[in-house]
């Protein structure tokens, strides 16, 4: 069966195609449209998915939307009614969006794809998340925990899954407005970052502070002994105001909010301390939820998804402290991942014997032929060489990196999820401390305090980072958890070790990413450190590059020294620089709140 999963209308629209139980293609719309967090119906992603499988829309057996729109609408209305008369603006904006677009999900899918209405299905939001983790995991049976801002009503859910016979059910859920994701987002907004985008900046800021406000943050929450909790709504506005997520009381307790884009937040001790405090409380709450999942299900395995499952620091604590023997986390934890989960759930619900699938690699996006890469370089007037095979490419690139150069790396199928894992990456030498500032300032044009991650050969990971001996746990495959850099190695990993000694490690599996692994090995031979500094191939505020042409224009717009585009390597600048494409990073979809 050919089943297409879709998520759109909120943040990160995406499409995923599952054929006979196996995901063959998945990609977020932003990579094609070049609009960060594009939330429109993902027509281009669909086109890619179908094309990759050699199908047309007529070949689809089902199209599954990642949530139940009517339930969500009833929750939004319940919220507006219970906060009357202060929810007028929220009601107008939300209902405007719903009567104009959001209510008509079915007809819009029909019109865009030309599929029959009876083929359009809807999978609950947290069930989609749970399926995206469990049905990609290696487990026969497992507990699931999904935590995000809010789906229909649920903000977190505990469930359980088994492969044979297939069963995936949700036991209990926490409901709006009591939400860990919305709590974290309120602090994201308070700290002057964009909600649904800047959460990982809060996480990156936290190690610069001490959690001296942790008790104040805990004061916003009424926890129960079973890990669940309620929020004290006096601190928040998200349930009644479309433009504001925290209340006056919030600013009375923590001081004035940071204006977006103002100053260096890492230079303000108070803001760092607030970030450290909310991060600590987030970790505590996640641990409480995970321990309850363990207690309820008795399973030694946990599958994790939802936006909060992208918090690598809390994931690391969860791996160590929640009591599970093994944890698997969906790399596209946010709403984009819901498209894949919805399609996988439907495949198991509709098919007698779907293939058993385990996600070992996130490379589910488009691939571009060498000819296209050469064409993009020629079009930009860039001189380039064709390397003599992968060994030659890796040797040349590691030589450049060891010499202090920053290299764009565009290879193979693009990654599923927000992390660059060696397909669309900007690479640098992980050793010199100054490299962090160089890449932040000259390459990505972003805040100097932001940390970078290392990608290291899996076999050597435990030697450099505080990881258990043997193969690194799966979340490290996808850069979904942090680990402490071993103290005696920190000097040699100075660019990728955060101020608290932690590092968001990617352990490169040679079987799944042979080329990227070979590059790290080559780095080991040249520098003695089998790793690279690895950050996503984009500039601040833009989506990760998709095509060779995107890569070339980003290369030209930044201070990168070289670009490895498939088998080709360029270190030169064009004689006659081409103007930047106008569509590229020119605008964003309008801001949106997850709550409505």
């Amino acid at each position: 069966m050919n089943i297409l999963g879709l998520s759109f209308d909120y943040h990160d629209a995406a499409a995923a195609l599952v054929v006979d139980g196996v995901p063959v293609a998945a990609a977020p719309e932003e990579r094609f449209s070049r609009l960060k967090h594009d939330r429109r119906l993902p027509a281009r992603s669909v086109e890619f998915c179908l094309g990759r499988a050699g199908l047309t829309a007529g070949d689809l057996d089902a199209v599954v939307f990642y949530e139940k729109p009517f339930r969500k609408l009833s929750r939004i209305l319940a919220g507006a009614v219970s906060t009357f008369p202060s929810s007028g603006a929220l009601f107008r904006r939300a209902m405007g969006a719903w009567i104009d677009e959001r209510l008509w999900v079915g007809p819009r899918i029909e019109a865009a794809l030309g599929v029959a209405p009876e083929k359009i299905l809807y999978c609950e939001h947290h069930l989609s998340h749970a399926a995206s983790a469990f049905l990609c995991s290696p487990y026969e049976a497992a507990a699931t925990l999904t935590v995000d801002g809010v789906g229909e009503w649920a903000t977190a859910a505990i469930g359980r899954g088994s492969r044979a016979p297939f069963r995936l059910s949700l036991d209990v859920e926490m409901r709006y407005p009591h939400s860990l994701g919305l709590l974290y987002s309120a602090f994201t907004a308070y700290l002057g970052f964009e909600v649904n985008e800047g959460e990982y900046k809060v996480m990156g800021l936290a190690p610069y502070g001490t959690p001296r406000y942790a008790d104040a943050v805990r004061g916003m929450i009424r926890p129960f002994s079973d890990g669940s909790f309620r929020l004290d709504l006096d601190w928040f506005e998200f349930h009644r105001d479309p433009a504001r997520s925290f209340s006056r009381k919030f600013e009375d307790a923590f001081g004035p909010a940071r204006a977006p884009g103002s100053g260096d937040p890492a230079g303000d001790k108070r803001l760092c301390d607030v970030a450290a405090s909310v991060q600590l409380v987030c970790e505590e709450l996640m641990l409480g939820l995970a321990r309850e999942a363990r207690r309820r299900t008795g399973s030694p395995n946990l599958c994790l998804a939802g936006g909060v499952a992208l918090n690598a620091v809390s994931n690391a604590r969860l791996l160590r402290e929640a009591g599970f023997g093994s944890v698997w986390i969906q790399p596209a934890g946010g709403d984009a991942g819901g498209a894949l989960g919805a399609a996988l759930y439907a495949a198991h619900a509709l098919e007698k014997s779907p293939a058993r699938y385990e996600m070992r690699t996130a490379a589910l996006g488009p691939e571009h032929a060498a000819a296209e890469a050469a064409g993009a370089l020629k079009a930009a007037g860039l001189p380039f060489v064709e390397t003599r095979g992968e060994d030659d490419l890796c040797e040349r690139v590691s030589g450049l990196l060891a010499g202090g150069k920053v290299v764009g790396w565009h290879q193979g199928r693009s990654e599923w999820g927000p992390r660059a894992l060696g397909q669309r990456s900007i690479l640098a030498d992980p050793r010199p401390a100054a490299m962090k500032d160089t890449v932040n300032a000259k390459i990505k044009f972003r805040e100097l305090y932001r940390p970078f991650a290392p990608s290291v050969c899996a076999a050597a990971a435990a030697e450099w980072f505080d990881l258990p001996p043997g193969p690194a746990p799966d979340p490290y495959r996808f850069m979904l958890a942090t680990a402490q850099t071993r103290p005696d190695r920190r000097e040699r990993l100075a660019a990728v070790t955060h101020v608290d000694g932690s590092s968001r490690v990617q352990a490169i599996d040679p079987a799944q990413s042979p080329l990227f692994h070979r590059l790290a090995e080559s780095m080991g031979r040249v520098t003695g450190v089998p790793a690279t500094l690895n950050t996503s191939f984009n500039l601040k505020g833009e989506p990760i590059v998709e095509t060779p042409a995107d890569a070339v224009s980003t290369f030209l717009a930044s201070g990168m020294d070289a670009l490895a585009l498939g088998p080709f390597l360029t270190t030169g600048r064009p004689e006659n620089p081409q103007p930047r494409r106008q569509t590229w990073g020119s605008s964003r979809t309008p801001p949106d709140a997850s709550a409505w």
Partner: protein
Amino acid sequence: MRAILADARRRLLAGAVRVAAALGAVLLAVVYWLVLGPVALTLRVLGVDLLGVRGKPSTAWTPVENPDPKPRLEGAG
């Protein structure tokens, strides 16, 4: 001539959208105060706790119903 007409049509369209949007905002405000308001006040008088924020429960977990997988996928509600 054709260009002028096309331009006029585009302006007219943009104007219509703006007018419709403003009209929509006004009408939704009317609905908010005249329809939603009385419903909200009635529910408040009846003591209905729509968001689950009152009372002193011992947990915030709510049990979830789990229909069979196939029917579970049917319908937008």
